């Protein structure tokens, strides 16, 4: 058999070889899925155990290939039952999913049933977008735990900007008995790979013209998600073809410059403005004396006249619509809008470049040392030594130069003819993300109060507020505010908000007046007042004795609160906690104070600053203590007595 195989390998053309390799792989002995065969160590903390998982990529030629994934997972209890489902995502223009199989085994490894073809469903996976993303979904349900499901599917692809990557462990609370990944290609096919987080070195076999690169991992214990941790570091492999072929376009990804060049070429020649727009652009910028003024003017024009609509069909997932399309329709996706602004800037002599980015508030950064497609979004940059202007073109509100949590502080690829390069977007500091509040509170002896509250938001904190309130009508605004103001029971008398323009950071003011039916609690002669009514941070992370993951704080902010209380006549402080409270840690700083300015005026002030920082797991307890101390200080109460 072996001899025969060698003979075929040497003598026939490549595709046949692959068929030979496949039959060799299929000859694997059948695995016994009896749960008795799971090592005890893998059952710890696990809701499921991946008994075996195998991913194999077969490169048919520089444009076509097949990815086959087969796996068997034992589901130990109902919390692991979501793993009983096969989900095979695909792009309807470039992929095809076939050969879906599924088997269900009981605890002893005895076959209960096979998946029937009519159980396989096909769904749109484009969400609200117009797009090609779809998914084949099949589920094997069983309610006698433990049981094992076995699945496999093959996805063929056309066009190679990327190759399938591999993750050796796919979920928390899931142990892995064995996971293997292999890429089979002609020896002449150039591609790159890199291992992360303890993924092993590959085994490389060459046989005539065929090369098989494969990785094996065994016995990975179940991991657990821990709050405030970065994404769990599971072992994975990134892969990337050296030569990019996509719908007639060719490029290569040996360097970031080359990869950027491919994107540049794909979008070249799509910058022609309609004459009408050309004229408009010149007219609008005729009085602008600086580059910055030109950017601001054209960005504002775009924000006022377009909206974000995502259309990702075929190569449209990669290639931009031209400015004519955006001008005619008044909408476009991130590529089209970035290219639109880029083209308008070009028309008035301001050079700019589109930028590829992995966007997302909670996304890990890309791996800068590994060249390949790690991006999902496009923004624009206008270069300026040391003070480049970054523009998020899908935002109808941001000032130019502000990116927000979606794209800040990460590696991005600037695409520029012959000079594409990886750089980092600017980071944010606590002081950039302000919530600055002052309030005037007329407290009555029955515990009711009239309060005027003024709050200024900038940066991230402003993003959160503005995205919710901008343009809400009165009734919805009232509903929204009522959800956010945590006074037990009150009437909202009036409010207004205003976008403060002209600042580097987006800034928003929100003011309101309430009548609180219970601001303080009245009992007999006394008023019990928790002075930090408006902004108590009371969440305390759970106790954890054996924390394993680091702590990642990724939302730096600064809150200041100054609440001026006008007390009813004749009341004095009977009891008050020790003041001021001051806490300084690496995580953040906290300060609170109470001062009697005169017999009827009490001023409560508070400051909480949280850093952007990553710290080792052993700091968790300190972090919890800090949060606990803040929570305690934020709930302190004053007792006022009106018995004079």
């Amino acid at each position, binding site marked *: 058999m072996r001899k025969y195989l060698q003979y075929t390998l040497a003598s026939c053309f490549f595709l046949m070889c692959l068929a030979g390799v496949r039959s060799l792989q299929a000859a694997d002995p059948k695995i016994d899925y009896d749960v008795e065969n799971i090592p005890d160590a893998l059952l710890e903390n696990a809701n499921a155990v991946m008994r075996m998982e195998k991913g194999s990529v077969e490169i048919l030629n520089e444009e076509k290939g097949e990815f086959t994934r087969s796996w068997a997972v034992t589901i130990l209890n109902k919390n692991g039952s979501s793993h009983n489902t096969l989900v095979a995502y695909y792009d309807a223009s470039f992929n095809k999913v076939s050969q879906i199989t599924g088997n269900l085994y009981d605890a002893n490894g005895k076959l209960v049933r096979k998946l029937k073809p009519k159980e396989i469903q096909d769904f749109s996976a484009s969400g609200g977008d117009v797009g090609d993303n779809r998914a084949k979904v099949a589920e094997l349900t069983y309610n006698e735990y433990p049981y094992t499901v076995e699945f496999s599917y093959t996805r063929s692809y056309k066009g190679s900007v990327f190759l399938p990557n591999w993750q050796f462990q796919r979920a928390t609370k899931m142990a892995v008995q064995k996971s293997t990944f292999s890429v089979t290609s002609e020896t002449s096919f150039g591609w790159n790979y890199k291992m992360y987080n303890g993924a092993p070195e590959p085994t490389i076999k060459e046989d005539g013209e065929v090369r098989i690169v494969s990785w094996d991992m065994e016995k990975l214990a179940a991991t657990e998600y821990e709050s405030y941790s970065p994404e769990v570091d599971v072992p994975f492999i990134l892969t990337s073809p050296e030569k990019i072929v996509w719908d007639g376009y060719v490029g290569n990804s040996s360097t970031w410059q080359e990869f950027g060049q491919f994107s540049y070429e794909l979008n070249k020649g799509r910058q022609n403005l309609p004459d009408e727009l050309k004229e408009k652009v010149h007219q609008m910028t005729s009085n602008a004396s600086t580059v910055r003024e030109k950017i601001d003017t054209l960005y504002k024009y775009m924000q006022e006249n377009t909206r974000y609509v995502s259309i990702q069909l075929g190569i449209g997932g990669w290639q931009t619509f031209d400015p004519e399309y955006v001008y005619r329709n008044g909408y476009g996706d991130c590529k089209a809008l970035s290219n639109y602004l880029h083209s308008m800037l070009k028309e008035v002599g301001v050079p700019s470049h589109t930028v590829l980015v992995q966007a997302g508030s909670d996304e890990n950064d890309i791996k800068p040392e590994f060249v390949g497609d790690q991006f999902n979004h496009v923004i624009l940059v206008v270069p300026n030594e040391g003070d480049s202007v970054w523009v998020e073109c899908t935002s109808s509100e941001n000032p130019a130069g502000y990116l927000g949590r979606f794209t800040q502080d990460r590696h991005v690829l600037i695409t520029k003819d012959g000079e594409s390069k990886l750089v980092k977007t600017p980071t944010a500091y606590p002081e950039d993300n302000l919530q600055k509040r002052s309030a005037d509170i007329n407290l009555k002896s029955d515990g009711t109060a009239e309060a005027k509250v003024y709050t200024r938001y900038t940066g991230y904190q402003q993003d959160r507020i503005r995205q919710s309130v901008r343009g809400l009508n009165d009734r919805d605004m009232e509903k929204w505010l009522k959800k956010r103001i945590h006074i037990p029971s009150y009437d909202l008398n009036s409010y207004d908000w205003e976008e403060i323009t002209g600042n580097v950071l987006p800034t928003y003011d929100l003011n309101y007046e309430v009548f609180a039916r219970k601001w303080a609690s009245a009992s007999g002669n*006394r008023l019990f007042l928790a002075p930090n009514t408006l902004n108590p941070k009371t969440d305390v992370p759970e106790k954890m004795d054996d924390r394993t993951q680091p702590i990642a704080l990724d939302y730096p902010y600064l809150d200041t609160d100054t609440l001026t209380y006008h007390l009813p006549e004749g009341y004095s402080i009977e*009891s008050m906690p020790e003041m001021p409270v001051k806490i300084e840690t690496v995580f953040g700083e906290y300060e609170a104070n109470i001062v009697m300015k005169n017999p009827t005026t009490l001023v409560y002030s508070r400051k909480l600053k949280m850093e952007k920082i990553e710290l080792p797991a052993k700091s968790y307890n300190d972090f919890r203590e800090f949060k606990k101390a803040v929570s305690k200080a934020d709930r302190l109460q004053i007792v006022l007595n009106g018995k004079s």
Partner: protein
Amino acid sequence: MLSFLIVGLLLSSELLYGQGIEDRIAPFQKEMLEVTSYPEFPDAGAVILSDVGTLKSLFVFTGWVGMTKVKRRIHILSESEISRGDVELFYYYKGGSESINQVKGRTYNLVEGDTIVSELNEEDIYSETLDEEYARMKFSLPNVKAGSIFEYEFIRTEANLFSPSPWFFQSDIPTLVSDYQVFLPANYDYTYVVLGSDSEKLESVSDGNWRMENLPGITEEPYSSGLMNYLSQIRLQLQGVTQNGSYKKVLEDWPSFTKKLLASDFMGKKFKQKVKIKSDEWSVLSNLSEDKEKMVEIYNHVKDKMTWDGSHSYLCFRKTNDAYKEQKGTSAEINFILLNLLRKANLQADPVLISTRDMLMPIKDFPLATAFNHVIIHVSIGGEEYFLDATDPQRPYNLLAFEDLHQIGWLLRKENPGWVNIPNDYPAMQGINVLANIDEDGFEAGLQGYSEGYYGLNIRRAIDEIGVDEYANSLSTSMVEDENGETFHLENLEEIDKPLKWKYQLEENEYVIESNDRIYINPMFGFELEENPFMSKERYHPVDFGHTFQQNYSITFLIPEDYEVESLPESQRYILPNRVGAFEYVVGEEDGRIQMRSSVKIRETLFIPEGYFYLRELYDKMITKQSEQWVLRKKS
């Protein structure tokens, strides 16, 4: 075949609709763009200027089909509403039963005093199938900005004129004019109902032409059933056909509706299909001596065996045993399996058709199967009645899914079929007991609680999701270990038919503060209601709690030897009109201890807007009372 035919016929649709629609609404005029707000709806960010629907019937060789031409014109007033220009139309494409064609659209903008019209291009209209039943047509109107008016039109074809799709006059934003006209076969006899909170505004323009004007937008409010029940709408129903001079009734009455369903392949016939339960399992179930015990164990068997696929259905399209073998099914499949096994055990069990809370309540005038979307099982044992729904393994037999609590259902059986009231008095009870004292070691408290019915279910679900540790952390972050080294003790987590019980101990914490020879006590230890769930001053829809409920809290606080009470809150009682609910707070001092009991009871589930004021008031009283503190003073 059908869909092919319809496409052919659409060619003549311009002819079919003629100028009908344009006659019924004002054509677009430039002045419309000059309006910046509408006096009746000063807060609106967008307004439907007109929404016109025309239903015409067409005879094709398979029978009559309905084609509804819809033309909608929307004025965007605020930038936050521009995404309304991205339109999605969903339709049920399976078996060619519905399709959407002839989409057109345009946007009007006022630019330097001129009206600029941007047409929607045909190539920018996309459609895709979402799954095996539904498809979506999606398009974005060009150049939509604050101030734009856009309009779009389309034709929706449905292969059924028996119960045409309802026409909704109302939406989530205000509607100035909504006009619906129908042209139906002359020999078809239709009846209709008008539903919704503004239905008195309906105006009958002419025979088969209805109109409503100036309708406010309607959005969700807490504690109410689905919006569907409040949006103003008209529903047509075919009741008879005249053929060759003789009138034939096609809309049944409830008795014949019942008979027909009982004979249906997808309903009554399924009751007779065998569910092949393993004989050893069956002998355990059937050998129980009490009927109620049998019912409970059969219910437990089905709910634990079957996984619900999340879809509600009242019909069953495959063999019940196939679903049983697959251990997965729709609500109808699961509950029909339950029914079959209950009957196999000679219990008197029958299906009850219901509509879930998010759906329209059944219309008693229309004996239609489509009024329902779910089926539950009614069992009668020695005069006791039980309602069962086996779709959730966390729910004991004596608890229906919250979604099922929608007032009425149709009891489907040969003898005495009829409407039944879905019980609303399922257990929903919570009790907490606290014993606290202060001695030389400082403050110490033991808390224990039990949660029954829906309250227990909610906690079990929370624990399923976040785990016991995090749940404990959410109750208190100052728990201390007891003598057994345990911090949070849980009982009956798995025994779902029993109340869930928990207990823990607290030491020093923020609820008890010693300062200047005084002790201030916040006696609810975090179990006080923090916010009134009814924030709005006014209420547009009724409150529908679904079920009655009760919460009790009691505490015994031992006063330290050297202290005495300085002040305690006053006891209070607040009773809702007609005694449908009450809040009570009773506190007193005796034998060196303070005893307090705080309870709330709601005995009615439906509160019409007029009763809302009192309900809101009750919650206010409770919040105020529960936040009051106790003061002890050092004896002099």
